[in-house]
């Protein structure tokens, strides 16, 4: 469908009064939960899944759009005011934002983040509007081997990019892959890794794993290391608005951040770490006030924050058109789609055009609502940071139990919650990245299906996997993404450790 016509149709759905209410509720809930310490965007969406599950799909996804951007913004509020980035994409925002807050410029930092998010989100959504339909068309000529190569690339890049250690990234990915194998094999009907437990025949529930890894793992981790100190909050002095000078210094970083964020986020190997980092470095180079960097430069908030939001919109491109989640947040969105029996991918634009375009239109509306909601209400959100920690984390556990027990009232899910929660704790203590587990769990079974299809068509000839130009290029990229850093690392460490002799 023509994007303009599609979008108009989407707006006609999204602007219905009841749907506007859902968008508003979503934005409000998304921001409120996202602001809470310890809860990043992915977990916000996971915790709110049970709320949306019983709405009709269109209303639910409209609400989702609000939750999505609300949670993103809520996360940056905590980074700026508490210096505690809930996810890797917010790290750069925290760097300068918290310094600004300490100088009593918290309000300006929050404003530039809010407006930057709006600008980036709107441009990103525009990009999504015009980019998604052609890619969805393109996806029709995708052969199974192309999909498989694309997924392989996503696996490898997620494991290599996230976290500090590649080995630990791969271990996280393989744990996810192994969890994804549990259940009845769809092609042959054989039971795999079920260990005789009937509840596992349907496979491992994505929501259970996600909530346990994030919420339970986080609760255990924070409880064990909790200090009785009161959070160092910086009052929102200096008014809500930015000065004229702030505007002048912010608008270019917003645009540049968007330019980094959207295209990189849209790549199957994208994510938000690289664009936010690039944006930060660029702003530091281009600024007229280099001495302020490291002490609260507004460009260092405006750019990365825009890049972060734009990449979030970019991530929706592979998600909606190819069914390929490339971040934890996208993985949980995919799970939400699957809850409704919808499979994101090219067919979604044809079979459920109303829903997809309604969702895209809601992204525009949610973004605008967020801006209207957040500039005046920033002071209110800040109060949420004062909730006493014992009650906050106790509440998080209860909410997690709603999500986990509510799925199927299964005792096995509760046992899984405990086990995966402990896993999440260990992963935090020993610095294993968490997102690869989710990507492996969700993409693993899909990759297997594509691999089988490709081999079935080629009658077992493995060279089919690189038989199309696209699959060959993607495979080569996948190999390079692992080989190049490994070779560089080997080269470097060999040089350094050589004089030490046989110590290792």
């Amino acid at each position, binding site marked *: 469908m023509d994007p303009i016509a599609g979008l108009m149709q989407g707006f006609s759905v999204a602007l219905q009064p009841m749907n506007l209410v859902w968008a508003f509720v979503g934005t409000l809930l998304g921001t409120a939960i996202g602001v809470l310490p310890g809860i990043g965007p992915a977990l916000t969406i996971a915790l709110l899944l049970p709320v949306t599950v*019983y709405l009709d799909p269109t209303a639910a996804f409209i609400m989702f759009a609000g939750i999505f951007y609300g949670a993103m913004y809520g996360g940056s509020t905590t980074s700026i005011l508490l210096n505690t980035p809930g996810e890797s994409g917010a790290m750069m925002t925290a760097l300068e934002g918290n310094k600004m807050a300490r100088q009593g410029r918290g309000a300006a930092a929050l404003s530039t983040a809010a407006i930057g998010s709006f600008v980036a989100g709107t441009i990103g959504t525009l990009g999504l509007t015009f980019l998604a339909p052609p890619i969805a068309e393109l996806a029709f000529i995708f052969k199974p081997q192309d999909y498989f190569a694309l997924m392989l690339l996503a696996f490898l890049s997620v494991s290599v990019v996230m976290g500090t250690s590649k080995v630990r990234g791969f271990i996280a990915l393989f*744990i996810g892959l192994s969890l994804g194998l549990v259940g009845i094999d769809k092609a042959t009907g054989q039971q795999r890794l079920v260990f005789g437990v009937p509840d596992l025949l349907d496979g491992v529930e994505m929501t259970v794993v996600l909530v346990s890894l994030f919420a339970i793992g986080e609760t255990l*981790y924070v409880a064990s290391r909790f200090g009785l100190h009161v959070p160092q909050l910086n009052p929102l002095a200096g008014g809500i608005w930015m000065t004229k000078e702030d505007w002048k210094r912010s608008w270019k970083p917003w645009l540049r951040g968007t330019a980094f964020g959207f295209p990189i986020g849209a790549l199957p190997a994208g994510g938000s770490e690289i664009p936010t980092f690039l944006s930060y470095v660029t702003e530091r180079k281009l600024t007229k006030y280099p001495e302020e960097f490291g002490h609260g430069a507004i460009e260092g908030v405006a750019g990365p924050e825009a890049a972060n939001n734009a990449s979030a919109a970019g991530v929706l491109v592979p998600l909606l058109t190819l069914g390929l989640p490339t971040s934890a947040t996208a993985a949980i969105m995919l799970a939400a789609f699957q809850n409704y029996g919808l499979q994101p991918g090219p067919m979604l634009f044809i079979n459920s055009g109303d829903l997809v375009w309604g969702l895209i239109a809601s992204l525009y509306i949610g973004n605008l609502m967020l801006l209207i909601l957040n500039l005046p209400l920033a002071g209110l959100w800040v109060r949420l940071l004062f909730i006493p920690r014992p009650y906050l984390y106790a509440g998080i*556990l*209860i909410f997690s139990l709603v999500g986990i027990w509510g799925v199927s009232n299964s005792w096995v899910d*509760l046992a899984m*919650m405990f086990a995966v929660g402990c896993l999440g704790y260990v992963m935090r*203590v020993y610095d294993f990245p968490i997102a690869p587990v989710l990507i492996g769990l969700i993409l693993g079974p899909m990759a297997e299906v594509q691999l089988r299809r490709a*081999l079935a068509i080629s009658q077992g000839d493995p060279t089919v996997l690189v038989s199309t130009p696209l699959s060959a290029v993607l495979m080569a990229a996948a190999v390079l993404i692992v080989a190049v850093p490994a070779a560089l690392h080997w080269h470097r460490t060999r040089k350094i450790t050589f004089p030490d002799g046989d110590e290792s």
Partner: protein
Amino acid sequence: MTERPYWLAAGTAGWGAIVLWKAHELPQFDQYAHIGPGLMPTAVGAGLVLLGLILALQIRRGVPFEEQGAEDVNDNHVVSHKALTLAAAACALPLLTMKPLGFVVTCTGCFVLVAAAFKSRRWGLNLALGAVVSLVTWWLFGKLGVQLGGLLPALGV
């Protein structure tokens, strides 16, 4: 002193071995799709064993393990095992009580335990707050259509 958590490597390889063992019971190849149900588990299991070995090597070489940062975590990373046990107990409690005692009682218990893990000592207040929060959550999500079970399953309510 470098911490050497070999058990991480053992756990990874051990889980890999379990996956491999279960995969071994399945056909590896298939007439039609050529990839049988067992091939992926074999690959994943083998990968985990291999990664476990690499991790063990890294640990032997003394790779540092830096804890991840989180909100509300004190900087000196003093681990309170008592708090950890209490929080873990809160997460394990549903395993024992969810079926017989239901959502509200279980969540009240969880609430009190987590609050205790976070060094809150106002037991009476925590109990009352936990009960109210659990009851409201149970009622509200019940209204929304989420099946959370009866109020007190043991009494048949």
